[in-house]
C-alpha cells in the first residue's frame, strides 16, 4: 500500500489519542481520579472503554490470521475471548466491585489479611501485565512494517511513547475517554472495509480461489485437547487480567458492574463477527497469504489485495489506524493497572509515584519486545491467558466464593500455577514451536486444575489460618449496597 497514507493514518490515531488524554487532564484532580476515575463513569462509556481496552492486537490482527491458517478451529478464539467475559460476569464482577479494592493485590490482601499474599499477587500481576504488553508491541511492529515500510522497532517505540504521554498526563479518567473512543474506532476500522469488500466481491461475482474448508498450509489441524485447553485458558484467564479488573471499580455499585458487563458482552459479540469475516474472505479469495507467512497481517493486506486502487489504499489506512488504536488502548490499559500496583506497593501511592511506575511498566516490556521475535499474535496472547488462569483466577474465584481459603493456600496455589505454566512457556520458547509437545504448548488444561487443587488442599491443611475478618469481608462482597438502589 501507499506508505504516505499509512503514516498519515497512524499519526491521526496517535494525535487523537494524545488529544483526548490531555483533555481528560483538566478534569483529573485527585488520586481517586488517577486510579479509578472516581467511580463516576456512566455504564455506556465504561462498557465501551472496557471493550476498547480488551480488544488487543490479538483480537484485531491475530484472530483473523489464525482463522486464515486453521479455519473453524480458530473460531474458538473469539468465542473464548467473549465467553471469558461471561465467566467474569457470573463469578467476579459484582463481588469484586463491592470489595472496594483498587487493584487485585488490594483485594487479596484485604480478603486474606496478609501482606505476604499481597506481595505474591503483585508479582504475578506485574508478570501477567508485562507478558501481555509484549505481543501488543509485536503487533505494532508488524503494522508499521507492513503499512509504512519503516523498520519494525519504530512501531513498538511509538506505542510506548504515546502511551506514556497519555497515562502520565491524565491517569485513568482520561484513559476512560481514550478507551471508549478507541472501541468505536476499532469497530469502524474493521467493519467498514469488511462490509465494503464483501459487497464488492459478491456484487461483481469474483470467482473464489478456494473452498473455505480447504486448509491453505497443509499443517495438521488442532486436536480436541488443544481446543479444550485453549477454551479453559480463555474462559478462566479473562477474569484475572489486571487491566480488565481495574475497570470494574469505575462502576458506582455491584449491580451496575453487572449491567456494564452485559453491554460489554454485546460490544464484543459485534466486534468479533468481523475478524471471522476477514478470515473467511482470506480463505476463499487470498489463501496465498497463509502460505507466505503473513497470516497475522491479513487484516492489513486484504483491502489492498482484493480491491486495489484508491479505495484499497483508503480502506487499508482505516484498518491500519484501527490496528494502532488496538495496540495503544490495550497497552495503556495494562500500563495504568500495572502502574497502580507498582506505585502502591513500591512507591507509596502518590501521583508522582504513579507516573514513574507508568513509565517503568511500559519500558520494561519494550525491551523484551525488541529482543524477541513475534510469533502468531493470537497464540502468544493465548499463553498469557493460560498463565493468568493458573495464577490470578484461582485466588480470585476461591477468595470470592470459598470461606476456607487461607493465606498459605493462596500463595502455594499461585506459586504452583505460576511455576507449571511459566515453565511450560519457557520450555516452549526455548525449544521452538515445532518441537514442543502439544500438552506443553497449550498447558492450561492441567495447570489450572493443579493450581486450584493445591490452593484447596493447602488451605484445608491450614484451617486455623482463616482470618477472623473473613465473615465481614464475605458479607461486604456479596450483599447489595445501601442506600437501596433504584431498581424496582
Amino acid at each position, binding site marked *: 500500500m501507499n506508505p504516505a497514507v499509512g503514516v498519515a493514518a497512524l499519526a491521526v490515531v496517535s494525535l487523537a489519542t494524545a488529544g483526548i488524554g490531555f483533555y481528560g487532564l483538566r478534569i483529573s484532580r485527585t*488520586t481517586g481520579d488517577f486510579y479509578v476515575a472516581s467511580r463516576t463513569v456512566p455504564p455506556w462509556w465504561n462498557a465501551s472503554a472496557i471493550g476498547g481496552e480488551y480488544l488487543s492486537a490479538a483480537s484485531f490482527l491475530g484472530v483473523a490470521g489464525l482463522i486464515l491458517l486453521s479455519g473453524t478451529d480458530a473460531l474458538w478464539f473469539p468465542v473464548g475471548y467473549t465467553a471469558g467475559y461471561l465467566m467474569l460476569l457470573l463469578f467476579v464482577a459484582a463481588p469484586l466491585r463491592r470489595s472496594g479494592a483498587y487493584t487485585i493485590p488490594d483485594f487479596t490482601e484485604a480478603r486474606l489479611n496478609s501482606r505476604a499474599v499481597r506481595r505474591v499477587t503483585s508479582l504475578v500481576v506485574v508478570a501477567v501485565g508485562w507478558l501481555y504488553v509484549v505481543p501488543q508491541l509485536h503487533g505494532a511492529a508488524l503494522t508499521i512494517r507492513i503499512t509504512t515500510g519503516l523498520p519494525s522497532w519504530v512501531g513498538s517505540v511509538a506505542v510506548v511513547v504515546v502511551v506514556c504521554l497519555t497515562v502520565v498526563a491524565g491517569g485513568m479518567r482520561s484513559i476512560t475517554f481514550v478507551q471508549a473512543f478507541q472501541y468505536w474506532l476499532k469497530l469502524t476500522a474493521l467493519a467498514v472495509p469488511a462490509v465494503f469488500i464483501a459487497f464488492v466481491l459478491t456484487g461483481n461475482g469474483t470467482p473464489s480461489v478456494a473452498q473455505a474448508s480447504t486448509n491453505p498450509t497443509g499443517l495438521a489441524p488442532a486436536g480436541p485437547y488443544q481446543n479444550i485447553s485453549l477454551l479453559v485458558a480463555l474462559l478462566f484467564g479473562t477474569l484475572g487480567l489486571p487491566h480488565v479488573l481495574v475497570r470494574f471499580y469505575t462502576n458506582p455499585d455491584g449491580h451496575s458492574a453487572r449491567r456494564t458487563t452485559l453491554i460489554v458482552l454485546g460490544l464484543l459479540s459485534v466486534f468479533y463477527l468481523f475478524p471471522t469475516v476477514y478470515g473467511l474472505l482470506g480463505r476463499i479469495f487470498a489463501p496465498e497469504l497463509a502460505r507466505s507467512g503473513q497470516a497475522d497481517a491479513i487484516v492489513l493486506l486484504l483491502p489492498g489485495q482484493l480491491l486495489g486502487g484508491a479505495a484499497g489504499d483508503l480502506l487499508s489506512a482505516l484498518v491500519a489506524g484501527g490496528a494502532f488504536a488496538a495496540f495503544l488502548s490495550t497497552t495503556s490499559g495494562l500500563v495504568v493497572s500495572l502502574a497502580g500496583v507498582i506505585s502502591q506497593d513500591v512507591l507509596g501511592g502518590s501521583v508522582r509515584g504513579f507516573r514513574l511506575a507508568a513509565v517503568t511498566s511500559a519500558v520494561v516490556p519494550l525491551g523484551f519486545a525488541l529482543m524477541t521475535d513475534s510469533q502468531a499474535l493470537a497464540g502468544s496472547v493465548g499463553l498469557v491467558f493460560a498463565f493468568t488462569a493458573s495464577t490470578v483466577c484461582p485466588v480470585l474465584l476461591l477468595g470470592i466464593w470459598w470461606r476456607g481459603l487461607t493465606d498459605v493456600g493462596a500463595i502455594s496455589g499461585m506459586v504452583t500455577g505460576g511455576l507449571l505454566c511459566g515453565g511450560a512457556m519457557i520450555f516452549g520458547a526455548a525449544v521452538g514451536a515445532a518441537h514442543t509437545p502439544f500438552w506443553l504448548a497449550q498447558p492450561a488444561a492441567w495447570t489450572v486444575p493443579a493450581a486450584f487443587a493445591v490452593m484447596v488442599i493447602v488451605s484445608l491443611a491450614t484451617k486455623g489460618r482463616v482470618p477472623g475478618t473473613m465473615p*465481614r469481608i464475605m458479607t461486604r462482597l456479596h450483599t447489595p449496597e445501601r442506600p437501596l438502589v433504584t431498581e424496582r
Partner: protein
Amino acid sequence: MTRVRVTAPRTAALPANDTREAAQESEVGQVFVRSLIRSQLWLALVVAGGFLLVLCAFGLLAAVPGLADARVAGIPFDWLLLGAGIYPVIGLSASLYIRTAARNEAKYRDLAEDQ
C-alpha cells in the same frame, strides 16, 4: 485553585466502618448472608454449566460431516454456527443471570430489613 498533593491510603480496600456490615454481624445476619452467597454461587454455576453444554453441542454439531458442507446464504454452516451463532447464546445467558442475581439480592434485602 490551589493544587494539593494527594496520596492513596495503602490499604484502600477496607475503610474501617460500614453500616452494611455492622448490621450483619449478628448470628441471624450471617445466616442470611450465607444463604445469599449459596444461592448466587448456585446460580452462577448453573448458568455457566448450561452455557458450556450448549457450547459443546455447537462444537459437536459443527463437526457433523453432512452439516458442515451445508450452506446458508452462501456461508458454510459450521462457520455460521461457531462464528456468529454462539454470541446470542452468550448474551442470553448473561441477561438471564443478571435478572436472577438481582432477584436473589432483593430477596435478601427484604429478609435483612425485616430482621
